[in-house]
């Protein structure tokens, strides 16, 4: 039996402080083993292995795609009607073809880089910079470098693209 041959940790070892996580794992394994043994005559191999094509759904509302049953008409309950409208809009949004983009992908990318997005190279470079580099950079800024960094800001997308 492979289970038998597997080495087991003694209780004394498991009670040690640094073995706590292992202890939980081992206990869980033992539990699983036990429950499998308990139900072994009920669960056959087929049940364990067969990948069934059947999904059982006991709710009529899900099967038949029933709508929510709380409705209001002609201003009986404005709060509820607002909710219904929102839901309807959402539904239509889902079924309608995707709305045309107001800003093209290209413009988006341009605007992104124009705003000096951090490049991969820059962020990786930071990793290799030393404390000294960092200090120097900071002090340089404080002393007022000839090219003070512009404050980053978003630019509006150009309006002439439609």
């Amino acid at each position, binding site marked *: 039996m492979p289970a038998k041959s597997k080495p087991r940790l003694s209780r004394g070892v498991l009670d040690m402080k640094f073995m706590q996580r292992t202890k939980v794992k081992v206990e869980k394994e033992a539990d699983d083993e036990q429950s499998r043994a308990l139900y072994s005559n009920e669960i056959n191999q087929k049940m364990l292995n067969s990948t069934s094509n059947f999904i059982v759904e006991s709710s009529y509302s899900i099967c038949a*795609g029933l709508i929510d049953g709380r409705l209001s008409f002609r201003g*009986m309950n404005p709060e509820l009607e607002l909710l219904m409208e929102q839901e309807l809009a959402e539904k239509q949004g889902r079924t309608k073809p995707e709305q045309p983009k107001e800003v093209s992908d290209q413009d988006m990318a341009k605007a992104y880089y124009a705003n000096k997005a951090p490049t991969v190279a820059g962020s990786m470079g930071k990793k290799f910079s030393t404390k000294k580099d960092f200090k120097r950079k900071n002090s340089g800024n404080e002393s007022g470098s000839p090219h003070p960094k512009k404050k980053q800001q978003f630019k509006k997308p150009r309006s002439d693209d439609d």
Partner: protein
Amino acid sequence: MSTTSTIVMPGERISAIEELAKSKRVILGPGLRRQDDTVVASKAGPLRHKEPSTFWVDNYQRRYIPARGDLVLGIVRSKAGDNYRVDIGAADTASISYLAFEAATKKNRPDLNPGDLIYARVLNASADIEPELVCVNSVGKRGKLGVLAEGFFFKCTLNLGRMLLRENCPVLAALTRELPYEIAVGVNGRIWLKAHSLRETIALANAIVALEQSGCAEIDKICDNLGDFLQA
């Protein structure tokens, strides 16, 4: 939803579904049961099919069997510890936690009394434990759920409740051409109604109950009757 009109009987094997299941996943709804690779009906009624591969039996029934995800109308029966007991027309009472309401905390409990009517979603349903309800959605908002005040409430068959809730059902829209109203239909065969006046509410309730016998097709006739009644 296509309505195939085959009637199945309990114990009947449905080989059409078995065939389909060989090639793709099939969803078996209420009234159908799987035994290994065979599919057997467990209720009597017309077999329904929804694209792509959902099947269920639309049987005639009055006793509600709780199912997860259903929206039901319940009557609060009592308070029990941290829960309310709610009658939803099933074999067992359902429970709903104090905390399953919008903005409810341990200190700020919802004000519910025995006899109140609530519209709730079934969170948990199993044959062995009592069903559990909630009155909030997954982000903790009330949405359409909650306590229903005033109005009239009556019971009908489960089928009628489901019929009203079908996506393409013309009934509720047709009724509102006659008068404004507010309605809550539980799939547990309970309907709550509220219109501007008592007379209108009674008229609506009778119109809906009449549908049980006549079916959707006669909705125009019923609406005409309703209109006549309200004018009288």
